[in-house]
């Protein structure tokens, strides 16, 4: 039993007499963030947050603390919150006791990394960047998530994660690469830095292009970001029930190219696997898009009840910091295709653009699935099926139905992309996605050039 589960059960005892649920979210992590090849924002965090939800007469309230000696007051505050709420007829009750799959996701070597190791691995990346200065970070951490409730539910998982994010750059050139895994042995910071530097070396002398519709090759870094932003309104049950989702009225219909299949698969050990969600519901794979046909969105207990059609949670209750969005996918698994390489995708495009990474996306029209953002750190023209001259950063404004609507191909091997921006309490999650070639990527403007 982990320390987190000990704490959860202790907090549950403090709420004796009430229907209650305790979530403990603990982290011990280090981030060696560097810029200009110098570590400048090194951050070590050691903390455990205890959230107590109390249900009284159909009223639900919650309180949280990180004071392990303050559990009695925590119970008092959560009780006061419940007392002053209103009865919620849609509250589904706390999750029942369940069996959880053994999914891995913990690595002793990763868990044992300390500040010296995190700094050393940052140094490995920096040393591998050659003539370029390196920006980014190496981080590793241990995250304990435990739940206990008066329904008898007991859930506990200790997660490890490590990732190296590398921007190799000088004033007029920049390239990007990253490596993520739950085993530090599968994260090669030097390889990430070298890939970023090689990309950067090709970006000098970037030129502008005219706005318009282009065919495009999108590297996995770009694909993952598009899916993340599309998911906020379109792939979670809240946006679906509130009629902001592009999938509204389209479940069972062909929405994308038949080569496009997207699932959320938190049980996959090649992703960052999870046993249960933040309500203690067992995780499950959810098919979102199969062969271009919209199949489902992800659900938690509350949205499943609101749907009113007998559906149940798919195990996607979010952490508190994401409550605004409701349940969301946190383990994208996009099927690969038959392209052997990025070069082959460029050949299939023939004439178009090549995009490494995206920046600062925003949702222009949720129901229409329209996103905007910029490309960066490796944007090129594709001519005659070859990656050609570098381009400045491009503004795109795209309906996802266009981007995924006509696909020239996907690479065979999906790659794991970090999705955790390290806000709030550490919650490692990632996307397993291939590169893809699309027939339509609408460029609506040009911006700054590559580099710092």
């Amino acid at each position, binding site marked *: 039993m982990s320390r987190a589960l000990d704490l959860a059960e202790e907090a549950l005892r403090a709420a004796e007499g009430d229907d209650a649920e305790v979530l403990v979210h603990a982290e011990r992590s280090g981030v060696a963030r560097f*810029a200009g090849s110098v570590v400048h924002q090194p951050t070590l965090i050691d903390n455990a947050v205890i959230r107590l939800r109390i249900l009284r007469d159909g009223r*639900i309230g919650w309180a949280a603390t990180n004071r392990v000696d303050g559990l009695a007051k925590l119970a008092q505050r959560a009780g006061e919150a419940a007392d*002053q*709420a209103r009865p919620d007829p849609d509250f589904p009750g706390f999750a029942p006791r369940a069996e959880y799959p053994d999914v891995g996701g913990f690595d002793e070597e990763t868990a044992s990394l300390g500040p010296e190791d995190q700094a050393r691995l940052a140094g490995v990346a920096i040393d591998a960047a050659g003539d370029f200065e390196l920006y980014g970070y190496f981080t590793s951490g241990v995250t304990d998530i435990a739940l206990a409730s008066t329904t008898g539910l007991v859930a506990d998982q200790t997660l490890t994660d490590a990732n190296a994010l590398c921007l190799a750059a000088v004033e007029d050139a920049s390239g990007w690469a990253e490596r993520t895994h739950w085993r530090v042995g599968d994260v090669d910071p030097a390889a990430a830095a070298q890939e970023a530097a090689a990309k950067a070396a090709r970006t000098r002398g970037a030129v502008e292009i005219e706005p318009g519709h282009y065919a495009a090759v999108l590297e996995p870094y770009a694909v993952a970001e598009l899916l993340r932003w599309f998911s906020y309104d379109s792939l979670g049950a809240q946006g679906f029930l509130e009629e902001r989702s592009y999938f509204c009225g389209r479940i069972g219909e062909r929405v994308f190219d038949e080569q496009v299949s997207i699932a959320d698969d938190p049980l996959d050990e090649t992703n960052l696997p999870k046993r249960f969600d933040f309500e203690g519901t067992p995780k499950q794979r959810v098919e979102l898009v199969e062969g271009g046909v919209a199949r489902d969105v992800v659900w938690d207990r509350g949205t499943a009840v609101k749907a009113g059609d007998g559906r149940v949670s798919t195990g996607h209750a979010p952490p508190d910091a994401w409550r605004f969005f409701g349940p969301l996918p946190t383990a994208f698994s996009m099927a690969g295709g038959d392209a052997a390489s990025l070069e082959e995708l460029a050949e299939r495009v023939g004439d178009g653009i090549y995009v490494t990474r995206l920046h600062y996306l925003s949702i222009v029209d949720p129901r229409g699935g329209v996103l905007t953002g910029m490309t960066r750190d490796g944007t090129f023209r594709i001519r005659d099926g070859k990656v050609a001259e570098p381009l400045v950063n491009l503004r795109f404004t795209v309906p996802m139905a266009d981007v995924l609507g006509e696909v020239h191909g996907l690479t065979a091997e999906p790659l794991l992309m970090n999705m955790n921006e390290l806000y709030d309490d550490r919650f490692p999650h990632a996307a397993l996605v291939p590169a893809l070639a699309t027939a339509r990527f609408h460029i609506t403007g040009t911006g700054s050039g590559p580099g710092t």
Partner: protein
Amino acid sequence: MKALAEAAVDAALGAGASYADARAVTLRRQHVVTKNLQVDDLSDAESEGIGVRVLVDGAWGFAGEGRLDAAGAREAALRATAFAKAAPGRHETSLAPIDAKSGDYRTPLERDPFDVPLSEKVDLCLRAEEGMRRPDVKVTLAMVRAQREHKFLISSEGVAIEQEIVECGGGIDAYATAGEVSQIRSYPSQHSGVSGQGGWEFVEGLSLEGEAPRVGEQAVALLSAPECPSGRTTIVLSPEQTIMQVHESVGHPTELDRVYGTEAAYAGTSFLSPGDLGNLRYGSPQMNIVSDATTPLGLGTFAFDDEGVPAQREAIVEEGVLRGFLTSRETAKRIGAGSGGSMRADGWARMPLVRMTNLHLEPGEGSFEELLADVDDGLYLETNKSWSIDDKRLNFQFGTQVAWEIKKGKLGRMLRDATYTGVTPVFWGKLDAVAGRDEWQLFGLTNCGKGQPGQEAHVSHGAAPARFRDVEAGVSG
């Protein structure tokens, strides 16, 4: 708490740090959210801890520890020092001098928002929701929030500061849907409403209930409104949209740490360089931007920043020319200046970064109506809906919840799905008028992201309606 921070600084110095500061922080946050006339979230969260920042041989180290006791303070100090010693490569960090001070500050307020019963907050939200309900309004949402942060800052250079900052706020949203069209209308902003530093009187002053019927009606009206046309035109931005423009295209690019590249991998850098100070034409002569950490009700108001530098008011852009950067002690020294006092940390578990405090577009002259009167054919854009800007803060695209045609100096038809785009200094060069002081409004936002690990700063901006000529509007996918 003060003694713990002092002990942490002593421990860091004893372990080999040449400089150390420690922030002991307690934080309490309360949220009430109602949605479709049900309580959606009713929460009361507290957090405490100590963050210790050190310099060892010119290298930074930082550790945040959630145990606010003697053992936690000592461990944070030792771990921060060990991290700094392990940093690879050569480091040459040095800090601009500081006139070390002791002091304290407390938010002036009339009614402590934590003294307001949760049930009163729930009632307020439900009443506001009732006002928005319409047949085509599928979702109504109302929220109020409160936060108290109490912190001690101690440094090895003699800084000893206690501050207690209280803020609260609220907002409402109405989502209307008909067929394939879904529209949102919000007040006072889409971004979790607005907040101010002060007591519950700030929330009462928002008049959420009073504005609710208009918000509901406009959400429904948007469903049948024509789409915003494409083309180059004159736009007038509402104060709430103007402050988003200030935030993204002036605030972030003038953060001097970004200018020096420390955010390059994530949030991006800046099109500005240190040599632009005093030289670069940022916009038209009507453009005057100030950074003011003393603004009443501002979320970025304090007596001292998180390095112990006193709050300041300084020009960032004067009559269209770049006059200042937002700085820390470290970045200010690189341009030979004293710190502008813009270092702020998100709680105890994050290292301070250069952040906006309160950044305002100074008012011009005249009324909103007078601003419109000089527009023969244009658009009035209100309430931010989408926002995106490139990594050097040049190319941007914003969308607003609602637009109105301006025809012959008067507001005309409502339009939906409005967007506009531009390049920062070109766009600000097209500013030809800002309305006067009577039209100037302050907005406090709580979702300004930066840093890795990520931090969310609470910042305020003030602006009056502003008019820009020859802008590309109506960008479509």
